[in-house]
């Protein structure tokens, strides 16, 4: 049984006071938007440029804000949401760990699922939590990973925690010691 999140292509909510789109990279695939929709539907965008040369932008209402890193963007998002009023909708597009980081911050600010839309895209990349030692291993792209905390070789189970934004990692030969399955790339 998998509880893999499914993502619907983005379109703006019909009734909202304001919309904010958060992206973890400049390249957003076309299929991230529902037919008939695109970037122009989201005049206010925050994007991770991932670059030390990102310059502070003049204050005002720029349609696009660029950030040095995802952490930078998420920290300012937390700040922004604390000052926001009801009627805002947020949209996140990017890697799965990124969009669920956005969801977590929004949830902590009091927003519900009916006020946000997420679309994960790009090559599969997961944060894997070791069930044995609780270490979170970021950036996992294969079906097996050696836990950075306890050294166990973990199988990435198809089980996602929406609260912790992690997939479950269980020692791969726990049932039959020594039987290590082949390593494969994670598939979307």
């Amino acid at each position, binding site marked *: 049984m998998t509880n893999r999140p499914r993502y619907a292509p983005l379109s703006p909510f019909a009734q909202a*006071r304001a919309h904010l789109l958060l992206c973890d990279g400049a390249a957003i695939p076309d299929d991230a938007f529902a037919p008939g929709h695109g970037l122009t539907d989201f005049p206010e965008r925050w994007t991770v440029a991932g670059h030390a040369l990102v310059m502070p932008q003049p204050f005002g209402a720029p349609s696009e804000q660029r950030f040095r890193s995802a952490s930078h963007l998420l920290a300012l998002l937390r700040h922004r949401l604390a000052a926001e009023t*009801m*009627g805002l909708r947020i949209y996140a597009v990017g890697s799965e760990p990124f969009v669920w980081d956005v969801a977590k911050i929004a949830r902590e600010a*009091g927003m519900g699922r009916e006020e946000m839309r997420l679309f994960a895209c790009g090559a599969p990349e997961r944060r894997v939590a070791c069930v044995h030692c609780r270490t979170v291993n970021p950036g996992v792209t294969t079906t097996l990973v050696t836990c950075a905390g306890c050294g166990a070789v973990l199988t990435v189970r198809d089980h996602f925690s929406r609260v912790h934004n992690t997939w479950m990692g269980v020692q791969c030969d726990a049932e039959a010691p020594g039987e290590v399955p082949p390593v494969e790339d994670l598939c979307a």
Partner: protein
Amino acid sequence: MMDNHTLTLVVADAALIAPGLRRVHLRAADGARLPPAAPGAHITLSLPGADGARPLRNSYTLVSADPEHGYELIVRRADRSRGGSRHIHEALAPGDVIDATVPHNLFALHSQAKKHLLIGGGIGITPLLAFVARLRETGAPFELHQIASADEIGVFAALLAPRAGEQVHIHGGRTSLDLPALLAAQPLGTHVYTCGPAGLMDHVEAAAAGLGWPSSHVHREDFGAAGGEPFVLRLAASDIEIAVAGDQTMLEAIEAAGIDTPSLCRGGACGVCILPVRQGEPEHRDHFLSEAERAQGCHVMPCVSRSRSALLVLDI
């Protein structure tokens, strides 16, 4: 889902607290502990009908509920009382025994809310009084805006006096509260709860929707739908015809005819009383059926809805 848990209550105290408002304290007739109730819960009382008619069932919000000390209600004398509120005002006396349902809660504080915005109109203050008591206890952020007609400001100020504070505001008349501005200023994670005349609650809902509030953050309490035109109800399966009077609900008419049919909130919110329609055009007044379901016209909530056609045929 018929609820069979009834309580036998005794009137411990009944006092007029303002013209047309009576506060009633109820305890278990056998002195036992009463079931606890969350703020916003209501009970349905069986009250004698006017002129020896069948008993009426009216739902009242609990202003406070304590298993030891009993339940407290505040009842407004309705202008067009079918007998329920008139009985409470004219006849009810300490020592009277009343049957009631156990408390039900269809109007509850949302535990995930960052802030609670309470908007009451007139006697719609009753569940909000229970909310304020709880919110003060838990220390959760809230604001209460009570709208009262100019001549009743004093009544509500007195009711709210024990709970006064900077979060509590009383407005004389609906025009003195700028609802859109109030709603527009609320932080993310706010839930709004409104109880009062349908017009006020519709206004709150529409203003919130217009500002982009998701409907999951807007809560309303519907009690005591007013009457309308009389019509005739035919129950196809039981082969009987019932006249529904203008000041009577369809549900009451069915019950008065001796037919037992499930109900819970009696305010068009819970969906328990749903009945299939075979013929005729229902006038939907509930908040349970979706637009699509209404358009199909296959079901009706008899606790609040009526009929547009002179005859409504139900499949029961």
